[in-house]
């Protein structure tokens, strides 16, 4: 069985690259997010009503508080590690080319298309929102055969709707096409 765990040790050369470039500073963002999560946990657990019961000596507050403190400690150690030039090896994959710069336009477009499709799922239904999601994502990822993308999207949306919603009873919304499909 294989795991998708990124599990690559950084080599000496990678560490040297980072030193000459001044470190992978974006990591501080992750570090800040960890600290932020820790603070949210601490604030949230402080707001919980203290429950003293002989049956539950721990209460609901202890675990979130401990997690919050550990997150704050970890984020400090993380920051120290980054300062010393520590890098986390980015995940590799069959279709991943880490040599090229990150393509933020594609990612942003995908996120927007995904969010719009999610919002349209309830009112318009699976077939329309699914077609939009598939063909839109394919376009964002570089597919320039727009018509073909739409047709493929429509085909798999209809196919999955009939196979899963009608055939297997999986819960998918019909939306405005209710009664037509």
């Amino acid at each position, binding site marked *: 069985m294989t795991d998708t765990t990124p599990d690559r040790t950084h080599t000496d050369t990678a560490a040297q690259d980072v030193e000459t470039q001044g470190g992978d500073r974006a990591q501080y963002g992750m570090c800040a997010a960890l600290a932020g999560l820790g603070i949210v946990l601490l604030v949230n657990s402080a707001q919980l009503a203290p429950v003293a019961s002989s049956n539950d000596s721990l209460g609901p507050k202890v675990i979130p508080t401990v997690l919050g403190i550990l997150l704050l400690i970890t984020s400090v150690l993380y920051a120290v590690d980054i300062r010393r030039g*520590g890098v986390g090896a980015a995940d590799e994959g069959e279709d991943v080319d880490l040599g090229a710069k*990150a393509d933020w336009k594609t990612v942003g477009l995908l996120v927007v298309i995904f969010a719009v499709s999610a919002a349209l799922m309830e009112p318009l239904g699976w077939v329309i929102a699914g077609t939009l999601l598939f063909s839109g994502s*394919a376009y964002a990822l570089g597919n320039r055969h727009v018509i073909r993308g739409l047709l493929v999207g429509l085909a798999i949306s209809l196919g999955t709707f009939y196979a899963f919603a009608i055939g297997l009873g999986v819960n998918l919304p019909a939306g405005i096409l209710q009664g037509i499909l």
Partner: protein
Amino acid sequence: MDNLNHLLDGFVNVLTPLNLLFAFIGVVVGTAVGVLPGIGPAMTVALLLPITFSLDTTQALIMFAGIFYGGMYGGSTTSILLNTPGESSSVVTALEGNKMAKAGRAAQALATAAIGSFVAGTIATALLVLVMPQVVSFAVQLGSPEYFAIILLAFVGASMVLGSSRLRGFAALLVGLSIGIIGIDKVTGQQRMTFGVPQLADGIDIVVVAVGLFAVGEALWVAAHLRRKAGGVIPVGQPWMGKQDWKRSWKPWLRGTALGFPFGAIPAGGAEVPTFLSYVAERKLTKHPEEFGHGAIEGVAGPEAANNASAAGTLVPLLAIGLPTNATAAIILTFLQGRGLEPGPLLIEKEPVLVWTLVASLFVGNTLLLLLNLPMAPLWAKLLQIPRPYLYAGILFFATMGAWAVNGQAFDLYLLLGIGLLGFAVRRFGLPVLPLIIGVILAPIAELHLRRSLQLSHGEVSGLLGGPVAWVCYGIIVLTILWPLIARAIRKARGGKGGPGEGLMAELKDEVAA
């Protein structure tokens, strides 16, 4: 002998025409999805989870077993025919397998992988049948303090032993645990981390977390770094092996199985270490050392067998104790929990037929896989040429379907996107996914056992130490945490050779690269 009878009952359950059909569908779909580049076994299983939703539990288990082995086998085809690094545990298969394919021996590489997977899967499933009842009879004696200690050991193993950076592993674990405690506290009924959002009161569904992390996160990550030119696919005909290939393969299969099964069965196991170990062992034992690095069949046969055997091994702690030790096992646990089944000794006592049906399905799925994959390999190879925009758009599409199918609410899709972005971030910054997903799944169970132990001891912390099992677990945990210090001390005593301790995997990787 009781178990054997249950297993036979299990076979009776599986071997009906309708159920064989479900097993067949599971194997075909699992392989087809697993072959697709960029889709590892964990993602295969996560994406295909929804198609079992509406089946009854027995049929869902049967189909699921097929998906499980199919997804794994699919991954090895990808790494042999495409020369790009895929999941960490098929890296080794690619090492020699792709060289063989380039030298025109793709058919033999695929054959030894398929037959080796079958041999290893069958032996390892048989070992599962032998070992699981022992582990169960051991596990029934365990109380909450012991369970809590074992879960902590799994946390430490997943976050600190496998990855390259202990700090990043621990950070990922903490994020997972924080997600895991979202929802109503079961003891006091108070809402934690829900911020007044009613949909969060029941916690985040683990299917949404798994699909978000493995499918959406991966798709977004690949989208940011999509190869301009997809790697060349090596065409292949019907897999077959000559007499010489059989002679050179059977020992590596058995050795790989022997290495893979135990590593899969321990917490902090996983397939990576045994596949690398198997490769190193085969290179040392081979009579054809000159072929290594240029496509030696032993280098495919051993690691592939180790990979499959460790997969069956992970089912031991999963079914007997309820402890997932790798990402795919974590998703299987999700699947069982979604069915209202809580894996552990009680499940086997209460629903023996169900558990043994799953085991029987593994045997059947594994056999179907062999019958299916040898003739269908050329077709699978064609799947590798699927245009990447369609592939990743399809992943997002099916991820959406899976997340919607859980509760039928748009809120889950926004959550899916959020967790997908988290999945993107952890891939970008090299935080391992495994401790994250294990944290999400085990956080509620760990807290339950912790509070129950303290309840039993009336709040005395000493109650956590429980019996010898807990002592051993805490002992290993302390050793693991202190390991860098210990390693440094040993190195000093030896005369200060080598850099700071990087752990077992780093050493193995150096060895393989040598």
